[in-house]
């Protein structure tokens, strides 16, 4: 009984197992690790048009599919099409991939849902309603971190020749897929392989946004795939450096994709050419460069002492030291305190710049001058110092220039360094530019060098008694000298007012000058009270009030000025273009992006030239600008329709003409004025 029941149970189990195997095995054989859906952008493409198909793919959890270059392992996907006569398929286009480093081997992969895009050409002359069955056999590799499986899938879809209408939902899906495609950078990169290093220089405007950058080479022979890449921005170039490939010959043309973070990227072509090592970066940086930059900064700082912004402060300080007749120890203490003040402010400014850089902002030395409010404050400060030098009022405690004591010296130093920045720009650009690409510690050393240079003369006066003795004896002449010194300070104020006007418009400059007048009146009042021997608290409050009011006022006025400037070129939209053309006006449409260097060059060199604008205005040319910085899909589709994959694109619409003239990618002012003049003549 027992035995029999066992055998029955075993038989049942066996049957169940068999059944499970029968059901399970075909399922297991068909189990795929990549779900692929073939999606046509329109199922009713027009005859004689191009229709895009997407292979919307979703890897199973833990699995990944490969980019066209799989990295150290992996194989590209191959597509075999079965198409109706006359229909042709382009190559598979791959979205920007991700990196997966496994045991020191690099894989360029997709671990998240992605889509290949491919363009099919539908021949002209097909009658509406013609059926176009499409069959695609895909061979691809999918892997986990552990195992790889080559898979095959046959995908089918059917198109019907029709009107090419695209429904909104499909359009939205394609917009997302197109955003993931690398966009052509539109400028040629250079690369060099030397001393076991691969260096790539990509034209990329200094102001363009950049996330985590990585260069995916399409082929081997140039860059090692697994080695980490260092990325440095130097002006309008992006330098990428890594280990050179150990095997193979560097190709004559290196294609690749520059990923810039968040799944976005640019396709580019690099040709061999000289590429200097990055002045910064982990590998190419040497103490030599840092020392040179430090020396440059030191010299520059020294030079700053004779600049109109600093000289008066320094002179006064030196004279006060001579006048006070302080003992040697006191002089040294003051000199050191002054130096500390100067260096502290220089390093602090440097640290702020480095911090902003690290945060992705594009800043440079004198960055505080890019904010009109800071310029206004500096303007008021310069006016205040000039009035003080002119003798309108005296500075009470806390002690400042002209007062002795360590704290006064420190404050004077800090003031000198801060006020010096507007003068330092042109002289310091080289050394400070270098500093910004050095590692943070070395960069701060360079900023400290600038401060040290600035403090050096006073340091010498403090430490060398002979120098102190050589200073002229104090006397009534010092009053006159002080008044004379107000002249360079007034010049500084004039310069700052001009800068304010340049930045935020004539209204903002006027507001700044009114604020300066207000501050002047308040300081005059302060001087009068001081003359009567009364406290200055109320007058100081008035000065502060003027400064605060001005600071609040300037950006508003300034913002309006900027908005006016930008409003000159209307944003491109297809309805607006159609409306302008219907109105019979010639239209010049240009498509640009912040990351497109060629675009910026063309704008500065041709489109924004006064001669061009005058000619355009005279011929009543409407100018439309399409900004593709963020990869707007609607603009992308429009650009593609003109057989361009990216920006720059320049279109000239003659009134009455059916199609625009596509202008060359390098514009000259004469080319544009000729187009406009032709309209008038």
């Amino acid at each position, binding site marked *: 009984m027992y035995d029999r029941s066992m055998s029955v149970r075993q038989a049942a189990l066996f049957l169940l197992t068999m059944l499970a195997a029968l059901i399970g095995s075909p399922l297991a054989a068909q189990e795929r690790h990549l779900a692929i859906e073939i999606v046509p952008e329109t199922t009713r493409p027009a005859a004689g048009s191009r229709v895009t198909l997407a292979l919307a793919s979703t890897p199973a959890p833990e699995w990944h599919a490969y980019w066209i270059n799989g990295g*150290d*392992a*992996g*194989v590209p996907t*191959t597509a075999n099409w079965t198409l109706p006569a006359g229909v042709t398929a382009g190559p598979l286009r791959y979205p920007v991939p991700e990196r997966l480093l*496994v*045991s*020191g*081997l690099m*894989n360029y992969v997709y671990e998240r849902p992605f889509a290949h895009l491919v363009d099919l050409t539908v021949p002209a002359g097909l009658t509406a309603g013609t059926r176009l069955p499409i069959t695609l056999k895909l*061979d691809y*590799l999918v*892997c986990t971190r*552990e*195992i*790889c*499986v*080559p898979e095959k899938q046959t995908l089918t879809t059917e198109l019907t020749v029709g009107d090419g209408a695209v429904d909104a939902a499909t359009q939205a899906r394609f917009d997302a897929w197109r955003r993931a495609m690398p966009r052509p950078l539109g400028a040629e990169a250079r690369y060099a392989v030397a001393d076991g290093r691969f260096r790539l220089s990509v034209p990329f405007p200094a102001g363009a946004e950049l996330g985590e950058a990585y260069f995916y080479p399409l082929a*081997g022979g140039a860059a090692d795939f*697994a080695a980490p890449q260092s990325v440095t921005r130097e002006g309008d170039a992006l330098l990428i450096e890594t280990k050179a490939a*150990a*095997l*193979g010959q560097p190709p004559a043309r290196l294609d690749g994709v520059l990923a810039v973070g968040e799944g976005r990227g640019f396709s580019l072509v690099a040709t061999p050419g000289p590429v200097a090592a990055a002045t910064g970066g982990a590998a190419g940086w040497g103490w030599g460069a840092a020392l040179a930059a430090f020396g440059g900064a030191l010299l520059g700082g020294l030079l700053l002492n004779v600049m109109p912004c600093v000289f008066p402060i320094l002179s006064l300080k030196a004279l006060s030291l001579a006048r006070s007749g302080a003992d040697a120890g006191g002089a040294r203490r003051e000199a050191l305190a002054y130096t500390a003040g100067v260096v502290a402010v220089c390093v602090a400014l440097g640290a702020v710049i480095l911090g902003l850089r690290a945060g992705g902002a594009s800043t440079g030395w004198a960055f505080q001058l890019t904010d009109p409010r800071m310029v206004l404050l500096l303007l008021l400060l310069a006016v205040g110092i000039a009035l003080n030098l002119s003798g309108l009022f005296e500075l009470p405690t806390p002690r400042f220039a002209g007062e002795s004591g360590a704290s006064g010296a420190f404050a004077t130093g800090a003031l000198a360094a801060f006020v010096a920045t507007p003068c330092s720009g042109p002289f310091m650009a080289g050394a400070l530019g270098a500093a910004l690409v050095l590692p943070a510690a070395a960069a701060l050393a360079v900023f400290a060098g600038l401060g040290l240079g600035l403090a050096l003369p006073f340091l010498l006066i403090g430490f060398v008694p002979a120098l102190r003795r050589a200073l002229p004896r104090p006397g009534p002449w010092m009053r006159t000298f002080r008044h004379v010194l107000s002249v360079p300070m007034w010049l500084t104020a004039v310069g700052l007012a001009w800068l304010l006007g340049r930045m935020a418009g004539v209204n903002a400059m006027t507001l700044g000058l009114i604020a300066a007048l207000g501050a002047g009146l308040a300081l005059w009042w302060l001087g009068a009270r001081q003359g009567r021997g009364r406290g200055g608290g109320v007058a100081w409050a008035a000065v502060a009030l003027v400064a605060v009011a001005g600071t609040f006022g300037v950006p508003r006025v300034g913002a309006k000025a900027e908005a006016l400037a930008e409003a000159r070129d209307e944003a491109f939209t297809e309805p607006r273009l159609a409306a302008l053309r219907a109105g019979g006006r010639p239209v010049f449409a240009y498509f640009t992006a912040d990351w497109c260097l060629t675009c910026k060059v063309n704008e500065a060199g041709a489109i924004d030239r006064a001669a061009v604008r005058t000619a355009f205005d005279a011929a009543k040319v409407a100018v439309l600008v399409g900004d593709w910085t963020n990869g707007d899909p609607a603009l992308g589709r429009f650009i593609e329709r003109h057989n361009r994959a990216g920006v720059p694109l320049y279109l000239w619409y003659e009134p009455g003409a059916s199609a625009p003239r596509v202008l060359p990618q390098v514009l000259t002012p004469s080319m544009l004025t000729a187009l406009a003049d032709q309209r008038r003549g």
Partner: protein
Amino acid sequence: MRHLIPLFAAAVLAAGPATGQQATNAPAGNFRLTDMTGKAVQLSDYKGRTVVLEWNNPECPFVKKHYAGNMQRTQAAAKRDGVVWLTINSGAPGKQGHLTPEGARAYVSGVKAQPAAYLLDPQGQVGKGYAAKTTPHMYVIDGKGVLRYQGGIDDKPTPDPADVAGARNHVLAALSELKAGKPVSVPETRPYGCSVKYAG
């Protein structure tokens, strides 16, 4: 071995993953590994004979493609010419394709492979020393110990056995050129296949 070449494997161990790229037309780094029978095998033991290194992972589809007959034929052809064939498995324990000595013996007899030795490199030292990236990944070393070829087995980077027919077998081509005293015309190619399943 009269003069003891320091085993580069030890040095590579310290240097980390895939750092020991071997330069083509330069002396190939020596190594010592234990084969599936427990015997120690050293590359320098074969001085004077041409040596082929083959990186292997029995479960890799690309390896399976070539073990459908092509790899065995290539091994037989090499053997006829007196070439030493060393198959190396750098799969780490617990990873796909890792073999114990018994497992290796079963595999070699099962697929009727004819290597002079099937070497076990579970630490991946030799694999990383040669920068072996894929399975298969092939190396040809001449009688003077100079590396003459490294790369893929052929020029059809697919997992489909049907593609073997029209492909150029880079190893056979290199061997026949070496035999004729000619320089190897294609000394480097890009290997293809699964990534080597190193530890870590």
